[in-house]
């Protein structure tokens, strides 16, 4: 039976991008459907009734939601180019840091972006502390996954692109060379890696989108 793989996402979705990367790294053919979240399709409402959000992977008619759950599903279903280690401890570490990235790093960087003045300075302190932990994680490694791109690289991949966009718009340097040499090195290696680099959303469009979001936040 031919595999039918569909990915519901949006053109700019950071979490959707993780799934694009995972599928491409595994060499899986898939159909991509870009949703308009202001006008959600019946397909999206059917396949993710709980959250009605993207990304959603539909594999032979069965849907899986939540990007990190989807990546693990992909890794378990298609065994080539494994993304997670077989060792339970290494797996637990990758899962822990991916959760840290989503729960703490993303929100702390967003806070820097949408705030001004003193609040922005405080937010920056928190963001730096979080990034320091990621920097330590990279010691002696090319990627978070070691020699090759793995689960944690995909989970944190949004950093490699979004940071530059946000830094440009808010005129603040979050990841500087002195404090985060390894993180900067990883950002470059990752964003230029084959299959990863061809999937970034158009930069100009992202700049516009986030500029609007920033303005809306400060209203």
């Amino acid at each position, binding site marked *: 039976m031919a595999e039918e793989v569909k990915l519901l996402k949006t053109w700019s979705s950071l979490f959707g991008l993780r799934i694009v990367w995972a599928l491409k790294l595994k060499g899986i053919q898939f159909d991509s459907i870009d949703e308009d979240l202001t006008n959600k399709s019946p397909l999206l409402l059917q396949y993710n009734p*709980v959250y009605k959000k993207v990304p959603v992977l539909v*594999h032979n008619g*069965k849907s*899986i*939601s*939540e990007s*990190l*759950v*989807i990546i*693990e*599903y992909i890794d*378990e*279903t298609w065994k080539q180019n494994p993304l997670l280690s077989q060792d*339970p*401890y290494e*797996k*637990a570490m990758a*899962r*822990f840091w991916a*959760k*840290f990235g989503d729960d703490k790093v993303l929100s702390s960087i967003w806070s820097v972006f949408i705030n001004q003045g003193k609040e922005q300075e405080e937010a920056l302190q928190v963001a730096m502390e979080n990034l320091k*932990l990621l920097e330590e994680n990279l010691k002696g490694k090319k990627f978070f996954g070691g020699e090759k791109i793995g689960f944690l690289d995909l989970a944190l991949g949004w950093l490699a692109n979004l940071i530059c966009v946000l830094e440009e718009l808010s005129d603040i340097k979050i990841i500087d060379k002195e404090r985060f040499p390894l993180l900067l090195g990883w950002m470059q290696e990752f964003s230029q890696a084959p299959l990863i680099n061809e999937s970034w959303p158009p930069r100009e469009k992202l700049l516009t989108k986030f500029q609007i979001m920033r303005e809306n936040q400060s209203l």
Partner: protein
Amino acid sequence: MSGNDTTTLRWLLKKMRIRNDEQVNLIIFLQLYSLFLQPLTFFFSSEFLETMEDEVILLDFWPSMFGSRVRIALAEKGVKYEYKEEDLVNNKKSDLLLQMNPVHKTIPVLVHNGKPICESSIIVQYIDEVWKDKAPLLPSDPYQRAQAKFWVDYIDKKVNSPGRKTWCTKGEEQEAGKKEFVEIMKTLEEQLGEKPYFGGETFGFVDICLITYYCWFYSYEKFGKFSLEAECPKLIEWAKRCAQKESVFKTLPDEKKVFGFCIEMRKMFGLD
């Protein structure tokens, strides 16, 4: 090395044209090796390593529904461990906790042969993967596994905050918390459907991650003034079914004790 061995060896070394004095050195070395070093290789063999006891420590806090998840998982697997209670009422975190979970400084933390694992749902998955020969907690089919992980993620994201509001806040905030909590329980009840457990026929990952709230329902209901059984009868049936399992009833603290804890906390927060 036996006399025969030595004779054979000397013959071999002579064939290799190794000088007599060097032959002697070599034979002495080999004799020493077989006496002392070779027996030590046993300690690196899998037979020995498997017989070594795992050192498992759990840092926890008795009312924590997150810590309970880990205790139930360990009980299901029959794993022996050392339990260390953290004094979180007085916010006295031990040096071990700060060392083992420097990022969040929270419980539970599982320390397995010196290596820490944090975040309860991650710990439960770790336990399932390490002690895989008994009582599987997650299904083997990738799609079913993804469903289980999705619902545990849902429980992690959604249940705690409104649950907490029902006993830890007043007025409008409490009302809103109660409403949201009931809605979430209804969603979970719908997901359970007619199955005996969330995983189907057997008690598993999702059941473990939700059942630990069961001993808190009494407090939520008392302070929030509602009845979960009236709102979600099938869910309460499920909870009672789970509570009959030894791993569950031996782990969960008594609901009245939890209620007493809530009263103490409310006083500390100045709510009463």
